[in-house]
């Protein structure tokens, strides 16, 4: 410990006093705060100033949290325009070009029933082709069956990409 102390040249009273706030803030690097500590140990004048600062810091840290008056929340909530906020929700929602909006696809294509049925047909046609050596024209049926699901997913992915781009632009 004494060896370490010898490495660090002692600091002057002026340096010590200039460091006291940082010292009490705990923001000094360790070797520096050690020098302040050692100076305070040996210098009664600076230690006295240090104690005064300490008292100020303690007072500052002991301010209690205050409570607003009892009707505070009610007043704020009464003043907050929820109804109009909800009414405006549609306008605030992120907007995408019409072509990427879900509604731009016919409801019959978007319907889970259509998509599921399409996949069943595609699977059936694929099986017929593969296992039972059906005509190769069945490949068109496979493609047609997969089409509704593929269209919906592709549109969803593009919409997601557009939203991300818009958000980034909004932040910039």
């Amino acid at each position: 410990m004494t060896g370490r102390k010898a490495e660090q040249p002692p600091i002057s009273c002026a340096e010590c006093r200039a460091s006291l706030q940082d010292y009490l803030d705990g923001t000094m690097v360790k070797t520096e705060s050690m020098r302040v500590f050692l100076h305070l140990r040996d210098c009664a004048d600076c230690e006295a100033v240090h104690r005064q600062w300490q008292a100020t810091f303690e007072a500052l840290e002991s301010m209690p949290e205050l409570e607003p008056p009892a009707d505070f929340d009610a007043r704020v909530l009464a003043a907050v325009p929820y109804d109009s906020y909800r009414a405006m929700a549609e306008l605030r929602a992120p907007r995408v070009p019409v072509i990427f909006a879900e509604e731009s696809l016919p409801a019959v294509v978007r319907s889970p029933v259509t998509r599921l049925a399409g996949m069943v047909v595609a699977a059936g046609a694929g099986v017929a082709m593969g296992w039972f050596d059906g005509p190769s024209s069945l490949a068109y049926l496979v493609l047609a069956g997969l089409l509704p699901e593929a269209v919906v997913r592709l549109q969803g992915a593009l919409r997601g990409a557009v939203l991300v781009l818009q958000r980034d632009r909004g932040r910039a």
Partner: protein
Amino acid sequence: MFDRHQDLKTIRRCKRGEEEAFAEILQRYRGPIYSLCFRMTRNAEDARDLAQEVFIKVFGLLDRFDEKYAFSSWLFRIATNHCIDHLRRNRLRFLSLDGVAGKDGEEYELQLPHKGPAPDTVLERRQAVQRLQEVIAELPPHYKAVTLLRHDRHLSYEEIAEILDLPLGTVKARIHRARNLIQQMLKERSYDI
């Protein structure tokens, strides 16, 4: 100190128009925001009005809240600026910095304390807080703000820099300056701190 993740979830519910979610935010931050407003203005009525305006303003600005910041930082930024605007609008008297503070780098010759016993009784402690609040109230608005964010809200220099959108060095210099002023004023009024 504030749960950033939980705040974000609540804010998203607010944005969907859930009234209860905003009530939760209010519940979580009414004390901190009111305390900040009170200590900035030193007036219960002003503090109540300012804190209310802050929450109403925040509600109106929710869509502009950038989720890459902590909600609490954003809220404190709005509250701090609102109070500073209020103080300026009302042209309240502040200490002239030159008048009290002296030059930078001055050395403090503080008279020293046969340091009395720490304020033990509840009354003494309350008086000490009272005096401190009086002194803080007289600081210029920006100095007051950094002091309160640092000591009343227990925020780090980095967080305060983010909230006030100031360089770290400026924040640190202001806090040091503010504390010098506080210490000097307490001393001049011969309050035994």
